[in-house]
């Protein structure tokens, strides 16, 4: 049992929170635009980790390990996550867009199961856990009372850069304006000449890419990847999104960091509590403030 509140715990919490934030953003963006809990999102994260793993062994012989190498692997992981997310959207979610919502949810579960079982059945991936390679030599620094490795810096910097990029994209670019319009009112957006399906597909692309990046970061930080690794982080990231206010992008980031810090703190106290803290948070949020920290109350239209 470590110390409950220390700089080290804060650093670990921020590191975990960065990974959750990247996953939670995808959940919240997809939910904001198509009102669908995309259960397969955790599996995009898993596929991102495997894409990074594959990229490492493909390029290992040609490129010297180092920061550039991490960057290339990151790009591959993001492309992997984005490609699968777009395929899932095109073949599983798009045909059901105007059917009852329950059928999309069931399909999302189906896609999630398919990705997990398919990966564990494929001989090249297989059900047994794999050790993630050490892409960068690990360097430790001592800052105050905390041990900080260069992996922590990578996690925080990559997450911060991607989130800053996303905020710029959503708030400043015409594409972002279109995304916000579609999430506000799909039909009105269509009448304004926005290609709604294109925007939805782009949202899945961004969400999948972020999940893929999170997969690489998780592989670096907790070097053990399995086909089922996406279930729990996906769940916790979703809870972070609910905590911050589902559909709200800054809320997802805030919720994820709170979740990460809460989880590492609880874990230091008791590992069982660490596993369950996300669930406790979810129940409390639903009881006390169902709209989340930054969410707004919406009324039903009759």
């Amino acid at each position: 049992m470590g110390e409950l509140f220390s700089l080290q715990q804060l650093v670990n919490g921020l590191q975990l929170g960065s990974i959750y934030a990247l996953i939670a953003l995808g959940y919240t963006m997809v939910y904001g635009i198509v009102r669908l809990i995309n259960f397969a999102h955790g599996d995009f994260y898993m596929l991102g980790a495997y894409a990074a793993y594959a990229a490492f062994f493909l390029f290992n012989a040609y490129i010297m390990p180092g920061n550039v190498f991490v960057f290339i692997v990151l790009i591959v992981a993001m492309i992997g996550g984005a490609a699968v997310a777009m395929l899932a959207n095109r073949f599983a979610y798009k045909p059901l867009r105007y059917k009852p919502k329950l059928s999309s949810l069931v399909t999302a579960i189906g896609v999630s199961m398919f990705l997990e079982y398919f990966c564990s059945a494929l001989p090249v991936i297989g059900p047994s856990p794999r050790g993630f390679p050490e892409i960068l030599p690990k360097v430790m620094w001592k800052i105050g009372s905390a041990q900080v490795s260069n992996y922590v810096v990578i996690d925080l910097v990559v997450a911060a850069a991607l989130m800053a990029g996303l905020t710029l994209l959503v708030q400043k670019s015409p594409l972002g304006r279109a995304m916000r319009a579609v999430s506000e009112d799909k039909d009105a957006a269509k009448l304004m000449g926005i290609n709604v399906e294109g925007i939805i597909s782009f949202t899945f692309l961004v969400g999948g890419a972020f999940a893929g990046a999170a997969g690489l970061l998780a592989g670096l930080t907790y070097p053990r990847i399995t086909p089922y690794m996406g279930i729990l982080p996906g769940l916790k990231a979703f809870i972070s999104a609910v905590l911050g206010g589902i559909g709200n992008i800054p809320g997802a980031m805030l919720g994820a960091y709170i979740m990460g810090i809460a989880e590492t703190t609880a874990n230091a106290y008791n590992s069982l509590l660490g596993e369950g803290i996300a669930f406790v948070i979810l129940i409390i949020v639903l009881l006390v403030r169902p709209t989340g920290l930054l969410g707004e109350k919406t009324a039903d239209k009759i």
Partner: protein
Amino acid sequence: MGNFKLPRLLIVAVIFFIVVTVLSLDQVYILNGYFMVIINRCMIFVILASSLNLINGITGQFSLGHMGFAAVGAYVSGTITTLLLKLPPPPPGFAISGSMFIFVVAILVGGISAAFVGFLIGFPSLRLKGDYLAIVTLGFGEIIRTILNNIDYVGGPRGLLGIPKFSNFTSIWAFTLLTIVLLRNLVQSSHGRAMLSIRENELASELCGIDTTRYKVMGFVVGAFFAGVAGGLLAHLLQIAHPTQYGFLPSCLVLIMVYAGGMGSMTGSILAAFCLTFLTEGLRVGIDALPVFTFGATTFRIGTEWVMVIYSVLLVLIMLFRTEGIMGMREAKLLIIEEKKK
């Protein structure tokens, strides 16, 4: 009482009972022990699927942790019976009826505990509109597994061992029949109609004066109760309760049964539970018989892990091309209560 008719459901159930019992007699022995285990599993899955159907199909909510409630039922009832077995044996002559009584009570206590847990997690999430139940139940399914893995008293990751084998064909049959009758009566009562109206349009049914939260919680708690019963039966059949039996993916299997059978059709759930349980066994045998492929130096063997790949594709295809499932909303005649003529 001159024109009293036996309900058709009871007739069919009794015929099924007699046929299976006769076929499994030692003298006939068409159904061996292996088949009997599958048939017992089928009936347990009938309970699981039709109770999940009440939540997901009739009330239109989305529960993903049905096996979590089964786990509660399994562990509670299994602990009760194993504890009671350790007591000094009852006087002779009392033993048989006594153990049967203990079994039924343990199963019911298991069901009630599952219902209580269902209330605890259902109430906060069902007050709200939207898909919160899905995520809460998904979380619950994972949490219950973690908790069970960490409680050493019930075996932790080894599972709860040494549960007495109280479940047999007769008791499982009786519980299954009881479940079907009770759920059928509930669904076709005014409460059931209130639940159906929530599925069709929550806002409209609220405007009609239906207390939607109450009915959603009611459907969820009843469903959890029967899941607990099924879990207890399964534990006393297999004589072990193991955390991995009750994870997220077994819950998905029950979910597939409900949606393959038809959202809201009990007939569909029952049929799908039987078909998919047999299909799982059939595929397992069939895949084992497949040859080993060889590409150069690497051999490639199709293993039983592909069964679940097939099922997940099946689920997506059903949703894409026949959203209403095999039976749609239809019910077999024997599951419909005939209205009395006035």
